[in-house]
């Protein structure tokens, strides 16, 4: 009657269950005995060999050429494109009375790194840099001035 059925399922479940558990163990043991599959990046130690993808969005930078010149005209398109008021473009006038870039303020603590400013720039003046170590112990120092000199040089 029922007893053989119960015993049958009892042993079946035991054997199948044990087999399933052993299979699971084979996966973890496989990893344990093959350290080559370890993925850990030892970050501060491997700083020298660390390679980020060129597209990585870490911070907004303004590249300067060898003469120390940049391409920004102070058109403020990036300022308008920014969702968080991260960028402030303060313009000034040069000797000829023409409007030029005075200060390019970039508040990195507000930046969400969406990259819209870079897309908005018609002059290719700002780029996304790879630097990502922005942690500070003080609140100040997050307002960066990206241009090294006034105007377009």
């Amino acid at each position, binding site marked *: 009657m029922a007893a053989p059925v119960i015993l049958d399922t009892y042993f079946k479940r035991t054997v199948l269950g044990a087999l*399933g*558990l052993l299979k699971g163990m084979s996966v973890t043991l496989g990893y344990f005995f093959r350290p080559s599959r370890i993925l850990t990046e030892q970050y501060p130690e491997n700083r020298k060999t660390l390679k980020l993808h060129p597209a990585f969005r870490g911070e907004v930078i303004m590249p300067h050429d060898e003469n120390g010149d940049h391409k920004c005209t102070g058109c403020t398109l990036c300022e308008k*494109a920014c969702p968080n008021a991260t960028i402030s473009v303060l313009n000034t006038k040069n000797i000829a009375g023409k409007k030029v870039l005075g200060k390019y303020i970039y508040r990195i603590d507000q930046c969400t790194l969406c990259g819209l400013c870079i*897309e908005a720039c018609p002059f290719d003046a700002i780029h*996304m840099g790879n630097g990502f170590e922005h942690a500070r112990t003080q609140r100040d120092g997050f307002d960066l001035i990206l241009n090294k000199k006034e105007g377009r040089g």
Partner: protein
Amino acid sequence: MEMVKRPLPAGFQKVSGDDNTEEYFINMGPQHPATHGVLRLVLRLDGETVRECVPHLGYIHRGIEKQAESETYLQYVHLTDRMDYLTSHMNNHSVCMAIEKAVGIGVPDRAEYIRVMVLELNRISSHLMMFGCFGGDLGAQTALLYGFKEREVITDIFDELCGARLTMNYFRPGGVANDIPDTFIARVKKVIVDVERTLEEFDRLITGNVIIQERSRGIGILTREDAIAYGCTGCVLRASGVPYDLRKDDPYSIYDRLDFDVPTKQNGDSFDRYVIHIDEIRQSIRILQQCIEQIPEGPYRSKEKPSYRLPAGSYYAATETAKGIFGTYVVAEKGDKPWRIHSRSPNFANLSPIGKMVKGHMIADVVTVITTLDILIPDIDR
């Protein structure tokens, strides 16, 4: 020790148990390892048996929808990354589709293929995360790490593609932000191989495990009717036997050109909700393989604009994310900013039936149900 009489939480009725036992309440969350963020579940318990379960939301409400009203459409796209951060691309896609619909921008073929490939990669990564959490929440911590391990490879592809791992902001109205790098196709091919190996490993480690089966079969059953009534979508709905998938039933992008199936399960229990993710990943791999073969040359974005002005009116676009249907409803007035944006988040609807699902089960089953519903709190609160 003096017992302090506290008023009962709203919505509860105290039922005195038999033989002098007393029901009690437990706050599962907002800080709890198994609630995947800051979800608070108020449980009314009789011993370990759950009598009633009420989810309380709002602990990570950031007012994204309100914030959207002060941002341009283009700027809003990157905010949707922060809703369901496991399916960022899909949220972006939904917003972009709404804008495209309103303004009438076409999307170049290559862009559509890139989009679909990225979307399916994102779906795989989200599902892998779900596997990991499923194993991890049931006590097999190692499975959690295995899920993350493969997901890491996919996030790295995204990193190379668009410069960020989680908050991608890659989709734009009319295409994508930039063309795919040369290595992309090769890496996707490699990921397909890797993911298939991982699926096989998960089969051995989790699916075939007798403890997992005991703990998830017949637990948290969501009937077909309930699933429809609560508005559940995605894997939760399909595990209950409803073959509804926007990619098939209301095809957007180029999904109508691709050949794939919509897997369904019939029982609607936790195990089905877990297994269906495996089948979905296999379908995603099929889609990826077709895309790799078919992807054409051409522009990756139709003519871009600094900002988009939507004609007054209301627009709705929905995508099938890894969790379910993510819809964006835009009400536009004149100007480049929306009057109101509402997001229909899949996780909110998927969480709703939890009270019904866990009733009569034990505390441990609440964890199983939460993890198989595959919810993400930032998407619920927004």
